[in-house]
């Protein structure tokens, strides 16, 4: 078990004028036993950051520590880590058993008997004991994934690193493996870094999320914090599906004037906005209501497309007063009858509105939450906290 510390870590690829900054001055403390998910779009540097912890990339600047040791100069083999790769990276010419024992042979002094016993135990835990004599080529994707996990677990390492391990699986298997990885991690209590671009994995798996964009740290917090208390417009738009709707506007006399509607800001909002004028309003699709009657602070919209998802429908609407024909998404109950071309009134409550500085993207006003919800924000997921003890 070990904590991980990243101290002003920077990674540049290429040299001189052509250098591309993949990770920009990231500092991060990860506690012993924590499950931390790195999330971000492609090219956000999340994989590079993990590979620097693994020692597969060397940082241009800054320090990486595992436990109390600064591991800058140590190769991957000396860091006592285990990694699960997106393509599993099982050794094609070895059987499952050889795959799983390879790490123990390379990195420990265990006798052949002990290695065999450990491998068998882990295989039983993963439910792959019947596959031990097969080669990876003979296994299905799901089985390969299990073997890859087993190969990491059998080493009993200080840190697990998982680089999008579920993205090659079909949707159903992904759900199963997601719960399984969660369970394993809390049982074993090993510090885990997990890279993903998947919303669901990010929200459901980690104790904490690390949101990255263009190699810069955007926010570190529990999944719910990132969802309800986004630090900036990027996090607000990236976490949550469908994404938050944004409307750029001007604030004059306590009213936000956007293209297509006006919104009277509450007193608390006005206080937070201060003397800024360029402000972006953000509201999540599920916080809008669509009704036939005009409402305070509401505006008339015309329905463009309806996507019924079953329990909910995603309705793409366009403000009647807008000068453009861009739509935004509203999530409504699946049973609410709405047809394309219909004219309705969209409304979002003052409690649900986020405001962002249009220039810098910083959050200037957060939505309100009930006290219970507020308290739940900072708590890590229950199953994971049990494992961290």
């Amino acid at each position, binding site marked *: 078990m070990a904590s991980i510390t990243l101290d002003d870590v920077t990674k540049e690829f290429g040299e001189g004028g052509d250098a591309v900054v993949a990770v920009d001055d990231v500092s991060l403390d990860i506690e012993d036993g924590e499950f931390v998910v790195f999330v971000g779009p492609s090219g956000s540097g999340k994989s590079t950051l993990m590979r620097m912890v*693994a020692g597969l990339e060397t940082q241009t600047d800054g320090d990486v520590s595992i436990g109390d040791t600064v591991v800058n100069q140590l190769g991957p083999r000396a860091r006592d880590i285990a990694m699960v790769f997106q393509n599993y990276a099982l050794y094609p010419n070895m059987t499952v058993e050889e795959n799983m024992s390879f790490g123990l042979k*390379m*990195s420990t002094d265990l006798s052949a008997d002990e290695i065999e016993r450990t491998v068998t135990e882990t295989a039983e835990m993963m439910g792959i004991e019947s596959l031990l004599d097969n080669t990876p080529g003979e296994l299905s994707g799901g089985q390969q994934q299990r073997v890859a996990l087993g190969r990491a677990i059998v080493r009993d390492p200080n840190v697990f690193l998982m680089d999008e391990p579920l993205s090659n699986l079909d949707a159903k298997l992904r759900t199963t493996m997601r719960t399984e990885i969660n369970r394993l991690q809390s049982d074993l209590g090993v510090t885990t870094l997990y890279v993903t671009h998947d919303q669901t994995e990010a929200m459901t798996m980690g104790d904490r999320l690390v949101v990255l964009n263009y190699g810069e740290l955007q926010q570190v917090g529990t999944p719910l914090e990132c969802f309800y208390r986004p630090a900036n417009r990027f996090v607000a738009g990236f976490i949550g599906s469908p994404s938050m709707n944004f409307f750029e506007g001007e604030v004059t006399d306590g009213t936000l004037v956007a293209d297509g509607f006006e919104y009277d800001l509450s007193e608390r909002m006005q206080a937070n906005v201060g003397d800024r004028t360029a402000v972006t309003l953000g509201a999540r699709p599920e916080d809008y209501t669509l009704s036939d009657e005009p409402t305070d602070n509401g505006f008339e919209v015309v329905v463009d497309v309806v996507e019924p998802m079953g329990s909910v429908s995603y309705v793409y609407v366009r403000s009647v007063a807008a000068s453009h024909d861009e739509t935004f998404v509203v999530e409504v109950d699946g049973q609410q009858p709405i047809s394309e071309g219909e004219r309705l009134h969209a409304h979002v409550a003052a409690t649900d509105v986020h405001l962002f500085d249009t220039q810098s993207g910083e959050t200037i006003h957060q939505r309100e939450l009930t006290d219970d919800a507020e308290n739940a924000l900072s708590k890590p997921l229950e199953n994971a906290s049990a494992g961290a003890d």
Partner: protein
Amino acid sequence: MASQNPSQSPSQSQSPVDTGSQRLDKDTRETLVSVARHGLLLGWSFVVLFPLYWLASMSLKPPGQANALPPDWLFLPTVYNYIRLAQDGAFLAAFANSVVMVSASVVLVLLIGVPAAYVLSRYDIPMERDVLVWILSSRMLPPIAVVIPFFVIFRELNLFDSRIGMVFMYVSINLSLVVWVMKAFFDGIPETLEEAARVDGATRFQGFRKVVLPAAKPGIFSVAIISFIFAWIELLFGLVLTNFKAVPVTLFVYSFIGSRSIEWGMLAAASMAMILPVVIFLIAVNKYLAAGLSFGVVIKE
């Protein structure tokens, strides 16, 4: 049904039953295709195998009868030519020469070429493309154009008519092939394999030796056999660069073509003997070849 002559009955051809029978029914068509395919393959096998049969039968005929026209299709086979060959010290020496020199050159070319290909595939080499083309350039000139420089260099370096010299020459013939094919092969092996090995506690070299090399086995055996064949059948350089000591077996076979007459029987027997090592090698590594000759595409991400 109406399969005799559908074109005569336009009214009937409207009905679905009839349009179906205008074409041959499915089973018959498949049988025909299969017959045609097998016929074609049989024909091609004949084209390929007939020269081999001709050579074998020629080697088993007594002298004088070997080149008779029209050939005697039925004859009493004799191993006379082979016995004469086996008793010929010069032939045995040349054969042994070739086996030793070619084998040594294959081992050497793999030892040099495989690591080189790995480095070119995995590391950031400055001007990698140019390096690769430079390696390939060794094969761009026709051999006849470089044989004289080779001769001069070999004489200067005291390599003329030496086995070591011939090994170097074979290596120079095959190196570009090994590097290019193996680079493509290594490119097809995902880099995460070595990364997994390094995270698992292996050094870079152990990762290469224990994980990448076994995965590259099909490619290695393929280039080995191709290199072996190219060196084994080499004639021109052997002709110019050897004299007595390091004569390869190809040159010996060639020597049966005299200025006045050609010893067909002996020529055929020696040729058959030459084919033997290649066939043995092929059978030995056969199971790797199918994957190897497709140059890496079999290994999937």
